[in-house]
C-alpha cells in the first residue's frame, strides 16, 4: 500500500522552518504517494515517546528534528531498525536507518546578501535572529559575506531574541535597529519585515517567501525547499533502498533545495545580473560559499 509517514515537530507547523517540511510532506500526501500524520509542538521531553509510539504503530518513515535529543533519538532508531528516520540533526547519520538533514541554504543567503549590500544607502544592515545556533549563524555569515562582496562599507547590527516565536518582540528589535540607522533588515524571524514595512525600509526574507505579504519591501529571499530531501527519502523507502545517509546536500542549490527569489523592481538591474552570475557559479561549483557556524556580532 502507500507509505505511512509521520512528522514529529517540536514547534507548530506554522513555524518557518517546520512549515517547509510540512509543506513537502503534505504535497507528497496530495500526490497520493504517502499517508501523512503529524504531531506538532511536541516538547523534547515527550519527543522520544512520540517517536516510539509512531514506530510501534508501524509507520514507515518518520521525519522530524532531533537537535535537542540526539542520543535518545538514535536509541529509538536502533530499537526499530525496520523504520526509516529522516531527522534534522547536526550530527552524522547512523546506520542502518537514521538519516539526517539540515537547512543548508547558505548559498541563497549569500546571494540575498548581495542584494542587501547593494541596495543599502545608509550602509547599515540589521539582523534579528532567534537563537545564536549553527542553523542561524551560518546563514547570517553567508548573508554578511554576500553583502560585503558588493559593498565593502557595509556594517551590521546583530540581535538575538532568545525565542523562536515572539513576533511583537522581533518587531521591536527591528524598530530599534531602524532607529539606529539600518535601512535593510535581514528578517530571520517573523515580525522583522513588518517593522520594515511600517518604517518604509527594505527587508530580506529567509526560508519562506513572504514577498506578497510585504509588497515593496522584500528585496530578495533565500528559500528552503524540503521537496528534494523528502521525495528522495520517500522513494528510497518505497523501493526498499533506504539507508542511513546525510541528506544535507539536498538543501543545496544544486538539488534545488535552496533558491533565491528576487524582486527586480527593487533591486537595480546590474545587481540582479551580478547575483544571477553568482548563482550560476554556485550551481556549477565554481564558487563555494563558506560555512561559518560562529555567533555573528555587530560591527562597531
Amino acid at each position, binding site marked *: 500500500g502507500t507509505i505511512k509517514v509521520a512528522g514529529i515537530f517540536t*514547534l*507548530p*507547523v*506554522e513555524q518557518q522552518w517546520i*512549515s517547509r517540511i*510540512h*509543506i513537502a510532506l*503534505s504535497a507528497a500526501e496530495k500526490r497520493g504517494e504517502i499517508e501523512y500524520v503529524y504531531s*506538532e*509542538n511536541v516538547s523534547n521531553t515527550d519527543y522520544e515517546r512520540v517517536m516510539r509510539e509512531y514506530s510501534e504503530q508501524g509507520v514507515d518513515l518518520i521525519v522530524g528534528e532531533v537537535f535537542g535529543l540526539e542520543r535518545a533519538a538514535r536509541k529509538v532508531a536502533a530499537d526499530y531498525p525496520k523504520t526509516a528516520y529522516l531527522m534534522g540533526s547536526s550530527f552524522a547519520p547512523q546506520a542502518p536507518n537514521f538519516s539526517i538533514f539540515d537547512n543548508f541554504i547558505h548559498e541563497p543567503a549569500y546571494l540575498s546578501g548581495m542584494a542587501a549590500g547593494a541596495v543599502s544607502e545608509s550602509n547599515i544592515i*540589521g539582523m534579528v535572529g532567534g537563537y*545564536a545556533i549553527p542553523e542561524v549563524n551560518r546563514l547570517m555569515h553567508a548573508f554578511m559575506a554576500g553583502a560585503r562582496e558588493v559593498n565593502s562599507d557595509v556594517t551590521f*547590527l*546583530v*540581535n*538575538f531574541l*532568545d*525565542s523562536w*516565536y*515572539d*513576533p*511583537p*518582540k522581533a*518587531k*521591536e*528589535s527591528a*524598530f*530599534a*535597529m531602524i*532607529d*539606529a540607522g539600518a535601512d535593510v533588515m535581514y528578517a530571520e524571524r*517573523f*515580525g522583522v519585515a*513588518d517593522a520594515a514595512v*511600517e518604517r518604509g525600509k527594505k527587508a530580506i526574507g529567509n526560508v*519562506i517567501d*513572504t514577498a506578497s*505579504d510585504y509588497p515593496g519591501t522584500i528585496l530578495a529571499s533565500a528559500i528552503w525547499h524540503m521537496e528534494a530531501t523528502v521525495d528522495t527519502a520517500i522513494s528510497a523507502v518505497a523501493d526498499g533502498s533506504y539507508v542511513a545517509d546525510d541528506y544535507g546536500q539536498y538543501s543545496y542549490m544544486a538539488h534545488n533545495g535552496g533558491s533565491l527569489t528576487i524582486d527586480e523592481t527593487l533591486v537595480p538591474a546590474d545587481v540582479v545580473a551580478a547575483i544571477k552570475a553568482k548563482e550560476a557559479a554556485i550551481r556549477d561549483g565554481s564558487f563555494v560559499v563558506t560555512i561559518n557556524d560562529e555567533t555573528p*556580532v*555587530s560591527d*562597531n
Partner: protein
Amino acid sequence: MEILDILLSENFWAAALRIATPLIFGVLGALICEKSGVLNLGIEGIFAAGAMAGWMAVWLGADLWGGLFFAALTGAFFGLIHAILTVPLGLSQHVSGLGITMFATSVSYFTYRTALPQVSTPPRIEPFQPLDIPILSDIPFLGTVLFKQTAMTWLALFLVVLVWWVYNRTPLGQALRAVGDNPDAVDAQGLSVYGLRMGAIVAGSACMALGGAFLTMSAFDAFFFGMVNGRGWICIALVIFASWRPGKALLGALLFGAFDAFQVRLQTEVGAFVPSQVFLMAPYILSIIALVIVARRAEYPRALLTPWFKGQR
C-alpha cells in the same frame, strides 16, 4: 555617551510606550482582581485567549473594535470561571489561577488549530494603525512618543484614568477597595461580597484579554502559539511594584517597557562584548530589586488570598 543618546531619543520612548501597552492592560486587570481580594494567576492564559479571540474575530470578518469586544468577552468568560471557583466556592486562588492559565491557553490553541488545520504561514489581518493625529504629532518630542501610537495604546491610557477615577471617586470604587480589605465590612453594609468580587474578577480578566489582543491586533497582525511569552506573569509582578495603584501601575509598565526597549538597543551596541542574555535578564532582575525597595511600603489588600463565605465565621 551612546546610552544617553538612546535615552534621549523619541523613538526609544515611543518603543517603551508600545512595549508597555499590553502590560498596562494586564497590570490594570491584575490590579482590579487583586484589589477585590482575589489573585488571578490565570492572566498568562487569558492573554493567550484574548490574543486568539480578538484576532480570530477579525479574521472571520468582524471589524477591529468588534474584535476587541470579542476578546474582552472571552477574557470575561475565563474570568467568570475563576470567579466561580475562587469566590463562592472559595477554592485555592493559586491553583484555580494556574488551572485557568492551562485551560485558556489550551482552549485557544486547540480552537485555533482545529479551525485552521492546514496553514503553513499564519493568516494575517489588517491591524490597528498608528494614529497620526494631525497637528499634535508634529510636536517635537511628544509628537512621536504619544501621537503616533495606535488606538489601543490610547485605550490603555484611558483605562488607567478610568480605573483611577473609579477607585478614588466613585461609590463602586470604595466598595471594591473595602471588599479587598475586609469583606465583613461590605457584607455588614448590605452590599454583596460575592457580587463585587466576581464582578471585579470578570472585569479585570476582560481587561487582561485586551492586553493579549494588543499582541495580535496592534503589535502584530497574526496569532502565534506561545506569543504571550511570559508577559502575563510580568504583570503579576508589576502590580505589587505598583502597590495596587493605577498611576504607579502605568509607571511600572512604562519602566518595564523602557528596560526592554533599552536592552534591545544596547544589545546591538555592545552585543559583541556582553552575552545577549545579560540584557534579557536585566528587566527581571531590576523588577526584583524594585520590589525589594518598595516591599516594605506595599499596602497589600488585607483580604488577598482569603476566601470569604457568607454566614460563616
